[in-house]
């Protein structure tokens, strides 16, 4: 049983430093999750759902230096996570986080699975027995020897779930676990959650994407500004309808049919037709991280023919590991090598031409904002861009009021829009974006969609790699599904034990 009783938590620092909203991050929240129950916390960014999960798994303590003031109390199967020693707490609450890149503590799958048991000081024989059990349950037999750097996002998340399962905690806390997952991996994550539920675990999940959990969840609790506003059963949530869901800033359930809404391309002008022909990309897939060891070359991207016209927004879709990111990196001239050609209005663009002619907005905007003000960021995009023109561009993306702020102090949604604004300011005919809405709530996703439409309206050809069905429904004029090259996922088929991803 996870119990939050009249819990209030305030961060001592301004909101940006902790990623929460200003004021109390949690304000008098009471809830319980019984064994065998799945409760989903939802609501707009900064509503306090992450704070709630961190109070349950002990990363935030209800009292203590530097962690803000907290009233009320939390109990996990009778224990106070704030004062329980790390090792004991790890046996009671398992945690899965958003970013698969930074959740691995070791560098290979087997060690990662064993890590928890080793930390608890279990005998090797006991760890091995548990390891056999969880790797069978999670379908990991084909992955055990692999380096974590060679796994797809979905595979990483599955390994983390299994590693947590190895310690067999009665309570589980997941913080936006699907943010980097494709539809199929999300569905399998939902199966895993249902499996935990069937085994009597108490499961608490903070999420923006709700549709994949609709069958597994027992209750949805909506938070806003740290307070509970709604308790909903899955049936009640679905019955709200898209308009009410949107008013509550919840992603639509059931999800919109992405293909059902044809949109007319935006204004023309500039350049007309972009074609990718016979593009293939191979990468050395080595066993190790620092580059030593036998590697083999494996095809990771294959695109036979893809067209984008000026004013179009083409969604590049496909499962984790289909090569979407690499395809965009090739397109933008950042990735060297590969085969095939990019033809723009009948002219073949070589790598240098692509580097200067394609604006790339990468997956993590935190590593692509360089200036020390929002206005400066846009002016940095093109030499000689006047402050007035830059301000006009900020206007289009609803960023003008933030012109003097440092980019790194903006919210995630604002940073994403700024990166898109800078891409427009660069004045390049083709703009490629990689997963621009992962981890964004409904309002920010809508704003990102509007920003993409603005790019198209300005006569740009837009290619966006995304898993986000809501984004596709909101703005894509066409989808281009990418299938993994035949040899690209040799282990995906091996991974079949229930519940697999």
């Amino acid at each position, binding site marked *: 049983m996870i119990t939050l009783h009249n819990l209030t938590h305030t961060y001592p620092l301004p909101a940006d430093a902790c990623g929460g909203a200003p004021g109390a991050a949690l304000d008098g929240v009471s809830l319980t999750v019984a064994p065998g129950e799945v409760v989903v916390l939802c609501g707009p960014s900064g509503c306090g759902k992450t704070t709630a999960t961190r109070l349950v798994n002990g*990363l935030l303590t209800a009292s203590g230096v530097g962690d803000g003031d907290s009233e009320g109390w939390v109990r996990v199967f009778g224990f106070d996570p704030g004062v329980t020693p790390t090792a004991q707490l790890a046996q009671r609450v398992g945690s899965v986080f958003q970013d698969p890149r930074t959740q691995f503590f070791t560098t290979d799958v087997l060690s990662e699975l*064993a890590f928890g048991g080793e930390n608890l000081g279990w005998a090797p024989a006991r760890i091995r027995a548990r390891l056999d059990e969880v790797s069978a349950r999670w379908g990991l037999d084909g992955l055990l020897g692999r380096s974590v750097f060679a796994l797809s996002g979905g595979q990483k998340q599955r390994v983390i779930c299994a590693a947590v399962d190895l310690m067999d905690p009665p309570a589980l806390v997941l913080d936006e676990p699907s943010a980097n997952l494709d539809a199929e991996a999300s569905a399998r994550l939902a199966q895993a959650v249902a499996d935990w539920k069937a085994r009597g675990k108490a499961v608490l999940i903070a999420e923006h994407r709700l549709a994949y959990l609709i069958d597994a969840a027992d209750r949805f609790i909506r938070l806003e500004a740290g307070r509970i506003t709604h308790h909903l059963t899955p049936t009640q949530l679905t019955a709200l309808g898209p308009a009410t869901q949107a008013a509550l800033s919840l992603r639509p359930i059931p999800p919109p049919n992405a293909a059902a809404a044809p949109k007319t391309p935006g204004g023309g002008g500039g350049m007309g037709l972009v074609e990718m022909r016979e593009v293939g990309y191979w990468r050395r897939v080595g066993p190790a991280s620092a*580059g030593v060891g036998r590697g083999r070359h494996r095809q990771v991207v294959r695109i036979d023919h893809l067209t984008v016209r000026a004013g179009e927004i083409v969604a590049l879709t496909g499962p984790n590991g289909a090569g979407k990111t690499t395809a965009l990196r090739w397109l933008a001239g950042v990735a060297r090598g590969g085969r095939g050609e990019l033809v723009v209005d009948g002219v073949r663009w070589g790598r240098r031409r692509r580097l200067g002619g394609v604006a790339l907005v990468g997956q993590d905007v935190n590593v692509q904002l360089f200036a020390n003000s929002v206005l400066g960021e846009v002016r940095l995009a093109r030499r000689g861009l006047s402050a007035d023109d830059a301000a006009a561009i900020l206007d289009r993306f609803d960023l003008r009021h933030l012109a003097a702020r440092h980019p790194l102090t903006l919210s995630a949604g604002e940073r994403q829009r700024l990166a898109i604004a800078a891409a427009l300011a660069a004045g390049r005919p083709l703009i490629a974006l990689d997963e621009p809405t992962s981890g964004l709530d409904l309002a920010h996703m809508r704003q990102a969609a509007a920003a993409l439409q603005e790019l198209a309206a300005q006569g740009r050809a837009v290619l966006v790699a995304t898993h986000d069905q809501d984004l596709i429904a909101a703005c894509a004029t066409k989808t281009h599904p990418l299938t993994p090259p035949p040899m690209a996922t040799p282990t995906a088929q091996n991974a079949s034990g229930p519940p697999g991803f």
Partner: protein
Amino acid sequence: MRLDPRAKLILFAAVNIVGLGAPFSGGGGIVRMVETGLVAALLALEGSWTMSASALAATGAGLAAHTWLSPSGVAVLAAGAVNLFARFWPVVLLGCYVLSTTTVSEFLAALRRWRLPTALTIPFAVVMRFLPTLAQESRAIGDAMRSRGLRLGGGRPGAWLEYRLVPLTMRAVAIGDELTAAALTRGLDRHAERTSLARVGFRPPDWALAGAAAATLALWWTLL
């Protein structure tokens, strides 16, 4: 071939001492050839032929520069550059070898055999995990800079350092936080006694490697 992390660490220490310290003249040259030969052999055993060859080439160039470049004029600068590269390169390659072929678990288990306290070994393990992740981030920043035409600072000389370091620092802090959270929620505690699945222990190849490392140092001692 799986080697005990302790044997690798002993070799790493020896190669550092010889690689950075030994001269290129006389007996120093012989010691260097032995040292580089060991590094090249290990890399070749892993199938990294290019790296293996580059270790030999770097040391060869260092010895050649020492022998044939006359110590005058521009040649001094060139010889200095080659000398520096020849000193560092085998050490860097061996570092990559150690990181690539040692899992974090093996490393922790091996250091435990040396009876080093957990409070000392866990930071080592964190660094082994942190560095490759930070390298990935650094590449992403480099990509973004190139794509935005900021590779050389975008017209502001010197700005490229700022463009590179500010986001990298921010990411380093965030990665540190997230890795810590992942480790804590899975029970990593410096006060607790850990066990390990990793099988470590000295076998004949490990003795041979540690012996070779010691011999290199001894050779240096006798030849100089």
